[in-house]
């Protein structure tokens, strides 16, 4: 605020620089060494995965580390589409992901808005329930979820794959926090003009909530595309397998006999690509989601 201490601050780092010029250089070098090393650790497995899915089985076994397929072949991918149910899994995954993402974005924002803005009896109780549900570890719910799906007679159906995941407590909470952070003046004006609650929500609130809705869309897409444990207790028939379930079966089931690494790596690669593209394009929304919602598992 005042000029004097600022000058002081500017000169302060200069002082050690006289004797520490070399030390800064060494520090920079070490910093980059650490960054590059870990970048390799975190990314090279994906390079290996991609390269090996274009190799022959013999080449993959002999030179697993090499990033260059020799010879280059797309045999694994031909086989994925011809001799596994991969196209079916993709279709199921797209359907389930679309439904869940649309459902979550709409229902989570609706509930989040009501909890932040509308006053109704029982609002506090509902908020507590949402937060409590968020704290229940998902794996503990595997058998309970199966029980209820079985009891309702929807076990082993598309409904079982989609309906239980249509609302996600963390999403409701993120939306609630977002709406709490926006000033209410705009919607109050609209309401004074006689617009109904839903009308106000639909034409005033939702357009305003775009950044939060994008975050929620991306998180929902990623979570439902990758969802695995739920499919294990919701469906049994191979006709209803999504990509993660199908690949898990391909690897661990009787089909997984033999190595066939190019095939397995290729299938896993294809399942990773959509999320990878979304991640690269919408990176900052992922980062915001991680910071706001804590980690989901």
């Amino acid at each position, binding site marked *: 605020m005042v000029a004097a201490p600022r000058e002081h601050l500017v000169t302060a780092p200069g002082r050690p620089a006289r004797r520490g010029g070399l030390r800064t250089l060494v520090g920079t070098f070490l910093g980059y060494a650490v960054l590059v090393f870990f970048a390799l650790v975190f990314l090279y497995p994906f390079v290996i995965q991609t390269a090996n899915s274009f190799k022959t089985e013999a080449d993959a076994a002999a030179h697993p580390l090499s990033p260059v397929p020799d010879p280059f072949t797309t045999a694994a991918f031909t086989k994925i589409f011809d001799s596994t149910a991969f196209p079916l899994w993709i279709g199921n995954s797209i359907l389930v992901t679309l439904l869940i993402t649309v459902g979550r974005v709409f229902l989570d924002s609706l509930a989040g808005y009501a909890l932040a803005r509308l006053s*109704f009896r029982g609002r506090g109780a509902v908020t507590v329930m949402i937060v409590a549900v968020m704290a229940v570890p998902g794996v503990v719910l595997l058998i309970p979820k199966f029980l209820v799906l079985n009891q309702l007679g929807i076990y082993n159906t598309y409904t079982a794959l989609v309906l239980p995941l249509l609302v996600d407590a963390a999403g409701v909470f993120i939306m609630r926090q977002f709406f709490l952070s926006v000033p209410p003046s705009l919607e109050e004006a609209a309401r004074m003009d006689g617009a109904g609650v839903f009308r106000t929500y639909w034409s005033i609130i939702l357009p305003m909530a775009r950044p939060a809705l994008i975050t929620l869309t991306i998180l929902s897409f990623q979570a439902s595309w990758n969802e695995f444990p739920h499919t294990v207790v919701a469906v049994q028939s191979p006709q209803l397998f999504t990509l993660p379930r199908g690949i898990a079966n391909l690897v661990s089931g009787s089909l997984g006999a033999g190595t066939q690494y190019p095939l397995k790596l290729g299938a896993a690669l294809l399942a990773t690509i959509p999320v990878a593209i979304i991640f690269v394009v919408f990176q900052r929304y992922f980062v915001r989601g991680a910071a706001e919602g804590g980690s989901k598992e």
Partner: protein
Amino acid sequence: MAEPAARRRGGIRGNEATAGWLFVAPAVLILGLFLVLPIGMALWVSVSGWNGQGSPFAPGVPFVGAQNYADLFLADGLTRENFMISIRNNLYYVAVAVPAQTLLALALALVVNQRFLKGTSFFRTAFYFPSVTSSVAISVVFLFLFANSGAVNALLAMIGISGPAWFADPRGLLHLALGGLGLVDVADPPAALTGGGPFGLSWWEWLAGPSVAMSTIIMLVVWTTSGTFMLIFLAALQDVPVQVEEASLIDGANAWQRLRHVTLPMLKPALFLVVTLGLIGTWQVFDQVYVMSQGKPANTTLTPAYLSYRTAFTDFEYGVGAAISFVLFLIIVVMTLLQRWIMRDRDEVRPRRRWWPRRGSTS
């Protein structure tokens, strides 16, 4: 919060109350039906002898009281043995994975946060990328990396080490370390340790450590979670006021002193969040076990989460499976509370009503 009922029907507040309930109804219904109600149903199943035939609420299903729970803790038998082995495996898993992922995430965040380094946003993205990919797809990649003729063993061969058959190796790391130091003979462990021990497992078995096979799953999980936790630390680091750092610089603190006495204390809430999420997450490992090992070899990658699934869906002992789920739930709750108590800050006045996990406390 208790808004008085609208005096006039159709008033703005009256509409609001109806709309409020309509807006939250789908969420309440779905969460209630598929998350809250099932817990009640599972509670009944865990005290029943239901075998998966028909409805668990049909009149013929026997009530067995605490029998299923007793089988896990008291009765000598295969059920208790498997359960205790899974608990042992997961204890070692938590003991290695939580410190490893926390320290790695913190270290990465500290380096990425250095202002004198350029291009850190690329590295931040690179470190975070594994966290957003599918656990199943990543497990497939690690199956290949750690295969007998896989990338890791090829790497080890380059420096003259002959790598193990990772997924087929049930030897415990602690046993290997004790044997390597010459403290015990692994082939013929001391009778004092093999003679007996708590819960039907000998002390020798309790002291196995994570198996070689389990260590691959630990590496996989540390690799995928560190990126997310790094972001939590980064968010907290960016909240550390520049003035504080500069002041300590003027006071002549060196880099280590600044880290130890300035940065780390300010990261305490983030550290708390990361350790809590880590403890909750590591007790839930399921996908990786399902894809990579199914509990093999010799049950050394068996975890309570996977065991509860296997007991119910392969052995059709739904009662025991549900009981394992509830014990696991209890373990996670106790771990969280214990951790909360250990890391409590006496100086901090904490609002008493916030008993739930502090989601979003880093933003």
